[in-house]
Each structure stands twice: as structure tokens, then as C-alpha cells.
């Protein structure tokens, strides 16, 4: 028997659902990262998971993103397509994002610092976006990704839009 592992993609995903016996579907905060990425603006960082201050953001990579930086590590996982990551070691990270701040911050322009390198992610690849650096993503074709990070000024919460609310 041929094994077929089913991954989702922006073009081809199926959603499951919550079937209620005795509960409220909102308690399960159920959404789908491909649907969220597909129906949001490029690089809109939509919270799809939240646990106290921590979030998982889903987004669609398409074209070039702004430069971002955070006062902590972040990790990105490509879920569909190909995403390029550019990293710059910031000369003065604390001047860019406050050291006690949380989440990704958008830089007003290009970062000041040394070029750290370049990564190209395809489906299932995880990259570290290390503290002290700035990063920019780019994708020639629409791609989908998730980010392990902390709720920050760039995080968009629109739960009622993305989640199952009807039993």
C-alpha cells in the first residue's frame, strides 16, 4: 500500500471541526492556519494560538515583509511554499526594541548591523530568529508559515473571525 502523508497548503486544505456533545465550540478556539493565512493581508501576523503572553501567529508570506526584531528568540515554521529569511545582527539591539519588551516589533526602515546570513525554508522547515537580530522574510509566491513568539504590537487578534463559533 502506498503511504500518502497529507499536509495542507494554501491551495488545498480541509478543515476539521468541533462536534459538541455538551460544551461551547468557542472553548476550543478552533481555526486553520492555511485559511487564516489565505484570508489575511500578507505578513499580517494573526494570533491562532495564545497561552498567557505566548502566541502562535499564522501569516501569509508574499513579497517582502518589513524588518522585525524582538527582545527574545522567535521561531518560524514554513507550512507551505518557499520563504527566504534574511538576518541582521543589530549593532544596538536595546535601541531597536526595549530589552523587556515582548513580541515582534516592526522596524521603521532597514536595520543597522552586520549581515548574519540567509535561510531558505520550504514546507516543514523551522528557523530560529535569534534575539539580538532583525529579520525580513520574502516569498516570490504566496507561502504560509507559523511563528512561535510572544504577543506583541504586530500581533493581530481576530478570534471571532477565524474560529468556529457554531456547534
Amino acid at each position, binding site marked *: 500500500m502506498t*503511504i500518502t*502523508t497529507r499536509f495542507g497548503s494554501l491551495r488545498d*486544505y480541509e478543515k476539521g471541526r468541533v462536534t459538541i456533545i455538551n460544551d461551547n465550540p*468557542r472553548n476550543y478556539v478552533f481555526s486553520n492556519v492555511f485559511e487564516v493565512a489565505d484570508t489575511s493581508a500578507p505578513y499580517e501576523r494573526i494570533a491562532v494560538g495564545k497561552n498567557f503572553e*505566548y502566541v502562535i501567529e499564522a501569516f501569509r508570506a508574499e513579497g517582502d515583509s518589513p524588518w522585525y526584531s524582538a527582545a*527574545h528568540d522567535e521561531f518560524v515554521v514554513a507550512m507551505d511554499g518557499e520563504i527566504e529569511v534574511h538576518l541582521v545582527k543589530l549593532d544596538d539591539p536595546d535601541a531597536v526594541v526595549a530589552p523587556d519588551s515582548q513580541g515582534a516589533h516592526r522596524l521603521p526602515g532597514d536595520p543597522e548591523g552586520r549581515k548574519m546570513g540567509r535561510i531558505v525554508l520550504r514546507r516543514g522547515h523551522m528557523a530560529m530568529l535569534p534575539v539580538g537580530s532583525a529579520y525580513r522574510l520574502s516569498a516570490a509566491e504566496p507561502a504560509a508559515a507559523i511563528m512561535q513568539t510572544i504577543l506583541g504590537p504586530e500581533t493581530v487578534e481576530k478570534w471571532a473571525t477565524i474560529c468556529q463559533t457554531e456547534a
Partner: protein
Amino acid sequence: MAMSNDTPTITRDDASKDTEALGLDNATGYRAFRVGSFGFRRDEYFAHITFPSGNHVMSIDAFLRALMRDVAWGFFYGTVNFDHVLGTVNHYGTVTMFAGKFNDAYTQAGRDHEELFDSAALMAIFKEMLADWTNEGFDPFAAPMETGLAWGGKNGANPDAIGRERVTAKRMVGLPGDTPVRTDEIGFPVNRQFADVPQDAPTVEPEPGFENEVSAYNLFAYLSRSDVTWNPSVCSVVGESLFCPTSEEYILPIDHGNDRAEWFLQFSDEIDWDVKDRVTGKPRARVKMKAGDIACMPADIRHTGYSTKRSMLLVWENGSPKIVDLIASGEAPVVPVTF
């Protein structure tokens, strides 16, 4: 300890260390164990559990699969229900072992029983039980189609299977000095059910001097090489935010009553979750998750899962010590988001 090694340890003087390995049974060759006033005995088909207010039987394959998880996960977060009667509650330093505590009929009739144990003492006797009761050829971590049978009298042992170390990346898999990526060479071939998963590596082009910081790896390939099922391991860490992906096949051998919200992101294929009330055990919902679906298990439920095709699941835990305090004071939120 749960998934994080940073979880605080709250010891208590009244936590029992009173455990005992008893003699060998002449008929079956297995040892019996006394854990406080709980008794544990196995025979060809069953684990038999006694406690002051009753007794209980579990099919030995299910019992060993559950015990294996409780041991490997260091009692995990919250409640590990071996089934609808037996289980443990982690207090991070001490552990409650119970019978009937989360079962309406037992509690209403006053037939439930629980004892508080020192975590290290309970872990030691659990490990001894697991080692004695697991025969050669049976791997409690494996999917049923990948292992021999648990039945029968004492027949060798399987220390390799039960001695696997849980992977806990400190920052991210693949970083220098951190957990390595999995390869054929170090004993992690691609699982039969993930034979079609691409094994390509990301393109990583660090500038000189940044080799340790510019890092990426193929997480899906890493998961395709997992030799265990239903055993989350930490792959990346943001503060106390732990990505604990795992590969799942057949049935989650425990009913997990988390003490905090727990998130699932389905990376591949599909899992059905059975969700019951954490305290009473009454069914509340069924959650079907397909690739790309993300959902949260509330903190007042217990859940078990079903995965026919081996699938990749991201379990996302918050290992913050502050949650331990919130749980102790009853202030931990039940759902992570209200909208």
C-alpha cells in the same frame, strides 16, 4: 518535571515515600508492588490494582502504554488518567496517585481513594514496575502494528524500549550543543508511515562568525524519523513557550486532564479527539483536526486521541512556573482566549 526542566519542585513533608517491590509470583514470574496502600500485580492479560476502598483491572497492554507515558513525561502536566479509574495528578514535586477520584460514581459513593507521594519515590517504583512487567518484544511506545504483544508470562525484558530519553531541546533542535537532528546514522530511520515525507534540508547560508546563530532544520523530516508514538518532545523554546511536536498512531494511551490550556496544531494527516469533563468524565465534545487545524484543549477537560494514519502533531505547552501557583490557588484560566 513535566515537559520543561525548569518546573519548580514543591516538596512536602507529608508526601509518602513508602513503596516496596514484593516477591516474584511463581506462576507468572512477575513481581508485585506495593505503593503506599495501593497494590499492583500483573498476570498474563491484566494489571490488577487494589486500594483500601476497592480493586480494579486493566488490560496489561493499555496499562503498560499508560505507565510508559507517565514515567517518560515525569507525570506531565495535571492529570494522567490511565483509564476511567486510575491515574496520577502532578503537583510538581509531589504526585497524587488516585483510584476513582475523577469518576462520579466512585466519588458519590465515597469509594475513591488517593495518596500523596514524593515524586522521586513514585517515579522510582513506577520505573521498576515498568521494567519488570515489560517483556522482550513489546514496546509500549510503539504503534500496535510495529510491536509484539504484551501478553503472557514473564519473558525477558525490553530495557532499550522503556529507557528512551525524552528529547528536550534547550533552544532549538540542530543548534550546536543542543539536541541533534535525526538521521539514519544515529539510529532514526524514516518511519514506514512517513516514507513519502521529503527529507530535504533548508538552505542555510550564514556569514562567517554566525554559524551558531543562523540555523534551520527540517522539522517534518525530524518527526518522520520519530520511533515512538504519543510522546511529545521539546523542539524549540521561547521563554516558557514549548513546541513539543510528536508523531501519533492508533490511540493516545492515556486520558490527559491537563491543569492548564494545551494547544494542538495538526501538522499532517488527521486526529480525532474525544473530550470529556476532567472531573466527572462525561463526554463534552469530539474534535476532528486535519492538517493546518489548530485548537485548544480547555483546562477543565480530559482528552484522548485517535490517529489511523501516523500523523504529525504539534503539542504546544506553557511551562511557566507561575501557572503552578495559579493552579494551586485555583486562579488558572480554563480557556486561554475569550471572544
